[in-house]
Each structure stands twice: as structure tokens, then as C-alpha cells.
């Protein structure tokens, strides 16, 4: 019996940029198995993109090692990169070429010949078929984003990395994209996703790591993360100010307020305090905590351990 290598393996990866005082990454260790749909979450500046840049060879680790299917991204970069498909966060394109030329060129870089069938399939699945001959400059932002995804997948990489693929993207593209990526994952591709849309991560990712200030502060199955933290939430709308003592634990989004409540007694006491403060409450509901609640709770837990 041979053990199959991890799809992705980060071993004590550190990174300090020449121009920065504090490290972007500090001893990050993660292993992602083949076939996983893995989420990498964290606030802006937590180090998600730094980690992906090191993985892709766009930047070099100050310490530690990264491998893709057992191939080190520095010493065995050709095999590692062949196994990787990266959708970059920035909306970049080469204005000299059309969509189909862009895809043929990208395929050619990887030495994949006779790839027309797969290129056509990518265009169909990403809703780009009627834009095949359009110049990249003529495309809308959403369409450019689709081309970025197609470019990353053109050499059929076993490991797919999506760095905030749905930032600023309309609902239709999000649906198309997740439908397609979920299909690829079912067919055995490993997916690593970073996103700020936590409901997406909750719906798609089997396991999640959370980064904060360059360190891993949580790493678990999505279901365990949801079960482990405050699992009940009191949600309501109000136009009134909340009592001062409730402010620190409240998550406020416009008129919507969410408060952690571990059990029925706590719900009752919260309602009593709201009533005492003459806070008029509408659309009251009690629900399960979502990933956003867990995320906020973890991020608020003082400095990274």
C-alpha cells in the first residue's frame, strides 16, 4: 500500500516582505487531502493571498516548504505548477488577444496539445461560448473573471485554487461558477477557496482554516466549527439604540441585530434587558449560528495564539 500525497501541504511557512516590519505569515502549517473542498478564510491582510502566492510561485517563502501532490513548489516547480490551476484575485488580462486565443496560449504554455475539445467545454460551462472571438478589452468585468477561471482550468489541473473568485461578481456568474467548480470537485479535483462571502464557504467547503495576522487560528471541519461555538443566535430588527452593556456582543448590520444566546434562559434575559431599555424589536427569530458568527467570534478572541 502506498499513501497518496496531500493535494496541498504547507509546512511551517513564513513570509516577511522586504518592505514590511511585521511578517505576513508565521509558521503556517496546513495539509489538504486530495478531493477536498477547502476554505481559507480571514480578514483582509491576514495572509491568504501571500500563502497562495507562495504556492503559485509568484513569491518565495522566507521559511518552510510548500508542495503540490508531493512536488515541492521550488525544487520541483514544473511538476507542482502543472498540477495547479490558480484563479488570481486581480482582474488581469492581455489586451492583445481574444478569449479563444488567450485560452489556446495558456494551454500551450503547459504544453497541452489538441486541447480544443476541453477549451470548448470550458467556454460552454462558463457561459463564454458567444464571446470566444471577442477581444479581452471588450469584455465586462464579470466576463473577464470567467476567462480567468477558464485560463486556470485549461490544463485540467488536479488542484484548483480560487482566490476570491466572486469578489464583485453578479449572482448569475456566482451560480454558474459554483455549479461548475462543484462538478469538478465531485469528479475528483481538489479545491482551495478564499472568499469573504462566508455563506459561500459554509455551503461549499468541507473543511475550513481561518487565518489572522499570518497565523492559523482555526482549522476544522465546517460542521465542527459551527457546532463548537455559540450555536444559537437571537436575530431581530430595531430602530432604537441597543443598551450599552449589550453592544460589545452584538453583531449589527444596519437595522439587523444578532446576539449570541446559549440557551433559553439567556434568550429570556436578553429580551428582558431589551424591554427594560425600551428597545422596540421587530421580526424576532432564534436561529443557529452561521459561519459569519463563528468567524467574528474567532477573530475577536484577542491576538492570535
Amino acid at each position: 500500500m502506498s499513501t497518496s500525497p496531500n493535494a496541498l501541504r504547507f509546512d511551517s511557512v513564513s513570509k516577511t516582505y522586504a518592505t514590511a516590519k511585521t511578517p505576513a505569515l508565521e509558521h503556517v502549517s496546513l495539509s489538504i487531502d486530495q478531493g477536498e473542498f477547502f476554505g481559507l478564510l480571514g480578514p483582509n491582510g491576514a495572509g491568504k493571498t501571500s500563502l497562495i502566492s507562495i504556492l503559485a510561485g509568484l513569491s518565495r517563502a522566507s521559511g518552510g516548504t510548500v508542495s503540490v501532490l508531493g512536488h515541492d513548489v521550488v525544487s520541483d516547480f514544473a511538476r507542482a505548477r502543472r498540477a495547479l490551476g490558480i484563479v488570481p484575485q486581480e482582474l488581469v488580462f492581455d489586451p492583445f488577444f481574444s478569449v479563444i486565443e488567450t485560452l489556446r496560449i495558456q494551454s500551450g504554455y503547459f504544453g497541452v496539445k489538441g486541447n480544443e475539445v476541453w477549451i470548448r467545454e470550458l467556454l460552454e460551462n462558463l457561459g463564454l461560448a458567444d464571446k470566444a472571438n471577442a477581444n479581452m478589452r471588450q469584455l465586462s468585468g464579470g466576463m473577464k473573471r470567467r476567462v480567468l477561471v477558464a485560463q486556470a482550468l485549461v490544463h485540467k489541473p488536479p488542484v484548483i485554487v480560487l482566490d476570491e473568485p466572486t469578489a464583485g461578481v453578479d449572482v448569475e456568474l456566482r451560480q454558474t461558477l459554483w455549479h461548475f467548480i462543484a462538478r469538478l470537485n465531485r469528479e475528483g479535483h481538489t479545491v482551495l477557496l478564499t472568499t469573504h462571502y462566508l455563506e459561500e464557504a459554509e455551503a461549499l467547503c468541507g473543511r475550513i482554516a481561518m487565518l489572522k495576522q499570518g497565523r492559523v487560528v482555526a482549522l476544522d471541519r465546517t460542521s465542527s466549527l459551527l457546532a463548537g461555538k455559540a450555536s444559537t443566535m437571537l436575530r431581530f430588527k430595531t430602530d432604537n439604540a441597543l443598551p450599552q452593556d449589550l453592544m460589545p456582543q452584538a453583531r449589527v448590520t444596519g437595522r439587523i441585530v444578532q446576539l449570541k444566546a446559549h440557551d433559553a434562559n439567556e434568550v429570556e434575559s436578553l429580551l428582558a434587558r431589551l424591554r427594560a431599555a425600551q428597545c422596540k424589536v421587530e421580526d424576532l427569530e432564534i436561529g443557529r449560528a452561521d459561519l459569519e458568527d463563528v468567524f467574528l467570534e474567532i477573530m475577536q478572541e484577542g491576538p492570535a495564539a
Partner: protein
Amino acid sequence: MTALTEEKKPTLLQHEQENSLLAGTGTLFRKEVLRFWKVSFQTVGAPVLTAILYLLIFGHVLENRVQVYDNVGYTSFLIPGLVMMSVLQNSFANASSSLVQSKITGNLVFLLVTPLSPLAWFTAYVGAAMVRGLVVGLGVYVATLWFSPIGLVAPLWTLVFTLLGACLMGSLGLIAGLWAEKFDQMAAFQNFIVMPMTFLAGVFYSVKSLPPFWLAASHLNPFFYMIDGFRYGFFGVSDVSPWISLGVVLMGAGVVSAVALQLLRSGYKIRH
């Protein structure tokens, strides 16, 4: 269970790796050629026109006043210099502008994530730069035939200097493209290094006509040897022996290529 039933490796065998690397290098080379060819009005037409204007103006003014070599009119003398100048400047421009544009617009990422090796980058970028230099040089030569048709006495010399000069300048363009972070840095490299060195290399005159100090200074300019050797192929006469020029240009091309390749290997300003 025997070793044969071990799970099959999802990776390519060594020779498949090499074949696909070769194909990848070919793709990058074709893409680089296609990039300038798609805007050939600007990348080929414009430099040919510029060279013709130099020829018309300087040829008209100086034809009956300057005689550099016996039996060679000034316009004829000027043609090889202009052809080589075009080869050198355009080889430089192709590699440098392509790289700096990709860096600034960010689309270099598409290349950075590929398995292409530093040598593959070098081959493709410098190869395409040489093609642009040769295409423009040929364009200038063909256009000048209409004004003052000149033949080649020793075409092999001309060919060797064209290829070496284009390779040197393509590599230099690669270095400049890696180094520059902004378009104005690129323009500075072009205007303050490449332009003066080509203009002071004897495109428009024989360095023999210069005062001793400037004659000595010209001999320190590697561009002088590229142009002098190139011109030897047309007339069979030159300011210094073509063998000396060959030695200097070979060494120059070797050093500049080695530096470019080393910068690519180290990821200088592209892999942070």
C-alpha cells in the same frame, strides 16, 4: 501485491516533461511574435519610416560633402548603419516593452504560474525580439534599395552580426524589462542608454573622422563593433577588423545573455 500495482503517478514522465516544456517555449515565442505582429503598423512600419527619413534628410544634405570610404557614396554608407540601428533598437524595444507592459498590467501572472523554465523564458523572449529586429532591419533594407541599391560583398558577416547584435539587444531589453517598474524608467533606459550609444557608434559617420579622444571613446562602445562589423559585410571595408568586432560582440552577447538568464533564475523583480 507487487510493486507494479502501486497507484499510478499523476505526473508526467521525464521525456514527456521535456517535450511539453519545448512545446510551451514554442507557444511563448509565437505569442511574443504575434504580439508585435498584431500592431505591426507601429512596431514595424514606424521604425522603417523613421529610418527612411534619416536616409532622405542626411543623404540629401551630406551626399556631396562627405566621403567616408573610396567609391562609397554617403547615402550608400549610411544604409547599413541605419539597417543595423533599426535591428538593434527594435530587438531591444520588443523584449523590454513586452515585459514591462505585462508587469504593469499584471498579466505576467499567466506566465509566472506555468511550468516554463528561466531558459524557456529567455529563449522565447529573446527569440521573438530577434525576429522583430530582423523584420524591421529587412524592411529598412528593402525600402532603401529604392534610393540607392547596394549589394553585399560578404553576406555571411552581415548575417552573423545581425544575429549576434539582435541577441545582445534582445537580452538587454529583457534585463531592462525586468528592472523597470514604470514606463518612464523604461523610457529613460531607452533614451539615455540605448539611443546615445547607437547614435555615437558610427551610424552616421566613420569614427575615424573623430578627434582622438572621441575616437578612443568610440572604441569602448560595444555598439560601434556591431555596426562596424555589420557594415563590413556590405563594403568589405571597416574601421576595425571584423574579427575584432566579432570577438567583442560575441563576448558582449555572451555576458548580457548570461546576466539576463541569471536575473530570470533569481526571479529578479518578478517573483517576490
